[in-house]
């Protein structure tokens, strides 16, 4: 009775955390490397006060402004004498937080609305999806700017603005997935034993959307980080003296010819994080999406 399966086949269907990690390391080295890099970044951001002796907002060395990189200040100092590496580490807190929190909010909202629209159909579907269409019709950067302008700056408002901009695309993808899952026989079977709509959405459809959601999550984080950078660069996001990578690029812009490290260091940081998340997302998609398996 037991079907014969090779070890490999069994592993391909196993989507537990450990199995995914194992496959990631074996099949996709860049993605695995990215995952490690991201973990290190998060660790560095959390441990910033331990790593660096300086403060990110107090002027520590007024006589030593715009200093070139040295042993004392590995990435030099900025225009008012603050250590750039310190600001980069503290900036990572904001940038990573802004990458993760609004993405989580928009994923949660998008998934809930997408499943609701896909499963209920009819008027509910029409209302939710037309709303999503309206959101998608605006250029997202412009919309975020308008929201920030009306709400005022501050990190909570950045979370809100970015979440509001991103939920629609998530809802669309989840809705499409739901439309497919709704017709499966196991949903029908669940209904035939009397499971209600809400339970079907939560226990049968949502868990089956998770692989797509995880991939979407890692692919949306870099765009959120970039959006925050752009907003801060334009002066609508994080305000001085707080540090964020976008803000640092912006202030360093005036000294680009004389003291390029001021802009280059945060720019490189943004690039590395965004690339790492993209690699990780791609790798996860290859592993979690059954249609792309074994090609």
């Amino acid at each position, binding site marked *: *009775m*037991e*079907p014969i399966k090779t070890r490999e086949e069994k592993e391909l*269907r196993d*989507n537990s955390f450990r199995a995914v990690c194992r496959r990631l390391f074996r099949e996709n080295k860049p993605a695995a490397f990215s995952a490690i890099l991201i973990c290190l970044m998060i660790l560095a951001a959390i441990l910033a006060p331990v790593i660096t002796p300086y403060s990110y907002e107090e002027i520590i060395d007024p006589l030593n402004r715009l200093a070139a990189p040295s042993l004392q200040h590995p990435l030099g100092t900025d225009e008012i004498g603050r250590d750039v590496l310190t600001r980069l580490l503290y900036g990572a807190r904001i940038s990573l937080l802004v990458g993760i929190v609004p993405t989580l909010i928009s994923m949660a909202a998008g998934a809930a609305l997408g499943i609701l629209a896909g499963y209920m*159909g*009819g008027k509910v579907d029409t209302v939710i999806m037309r709303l999503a269409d309206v959101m998608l019709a605006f250029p997202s950067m412009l919309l975020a700017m308008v929201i920030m302008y009306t709400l005022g700056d501050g990190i909570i408002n950045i979370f809100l603005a970015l979440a509001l901009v991103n939920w629609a695309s998530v809802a669309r993808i989840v809705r499409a997935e739901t439309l497919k899952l709704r017709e*499966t*026989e*196991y949903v*029908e*079977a*669940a*209904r*035939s*034993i*009397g*499971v*209600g709509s809400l*339970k079907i959405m939560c*226990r*049968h459809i949502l*868990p*089956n959307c*998770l692989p797509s959601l995880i991939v979407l999550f890692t692919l949306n984080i870099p765009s959120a980080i970039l959006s925050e950078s752009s907003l801060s660069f334009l002066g609508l996001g994080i305000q001085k003296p707080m540090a964020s990578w976008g803000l640092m690029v912006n202030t360093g812009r005036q000294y680009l010819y004389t003291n390029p490290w001021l802009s280059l260091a945060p720019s490189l940081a943004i690039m590395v994080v965004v690339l790492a998340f993209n690699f990780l997302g791609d790798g996860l998609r290859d592993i979690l999406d059954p249609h792309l398996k074994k090609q």
Partner: protein
Amino acid sequence: MEKATLQVKNLSTSFFTERGEIKAVNDVSFTVPRRSIVGIVGESGCGKSMTARSIMGLVKYPGRIVAGSIDLEGKELTALSPRDMSVVRGEEISMIFQEPMTSLNPVMKVGHQVREAVLLHRKVSRKEAKNKVLRIFEEVGISEPEKRYNSYPHELSGGLRQRVMIAMAMVCRPKLLIADEPTTALDVTVEAQILELMKKLRDEVDTSIILISHNLGVIAEVCDYVHVMYAGRIVESGETFELFDNPRHPYTKGLMSAVNSLALRQPSLETIPGTVPNLLDVKEGCSFAPRCRHCNQRCITETPALSELSAGHNVRCHLVREV
């Protein structure tokens, strides 16, 4: 006479599409006596699955039940609200499906899926529910129930999955089980085991069963009564032995002769010419007329009624006394 478990009267289910009304189930009446297995046979698209879905209250938009009554031991199912109906589903009637491969949620342990049914309909703790699941697993012949409880569907074979499906459907001891082609996707040895299991459940749990199949062999094996459906209508019905020994409708005869038999050593397989008619344009007249070799003028202009030949044996054909 004992009271029937289920009485379906003049049931009609239609789909309202842009191109018009599709009468998937057309004026179907039948009875499921207590502790009996009733078979519904027919080609693909003849409305047998839609009949099952109508009884379950699972007809999808744009389809709906347009007429008729479904009486489950005195309870009129067509009059129930969706909420009340979902209480009846699983508790009093339940269903198993054709594809055991896709009928179980791939990311849920099978034990939890069956337990879901218990928790929905019985006020018991999770632990008691689990015990109930383990007991039903044993009853439906799943070896090592404790181990299987924590298995995911992809770790089980087709036969085991169908057993899990049956466990899920039977765990609340419903009065009626609808099996929609339960063995079509399984190989013959497993098929025999599953049919045996269904007979055993009927005897031990006191559940009536509606068995839907296009396989006459399966029907002959387990059913007490048979209804032959064609183009949304019942064209012949009767007790299994009577119907198989003495088929009267040309369609039933055609089906019987299309069964492959090693014993007869036929040189080639008999077929019924033509295909199932498009249910969009149901005209007056016998729906089988275009494919019937005995068809005459009356068959084309006048829809035949079900006429009783002998006790319980009904045929929908004008020419039944001549052919």
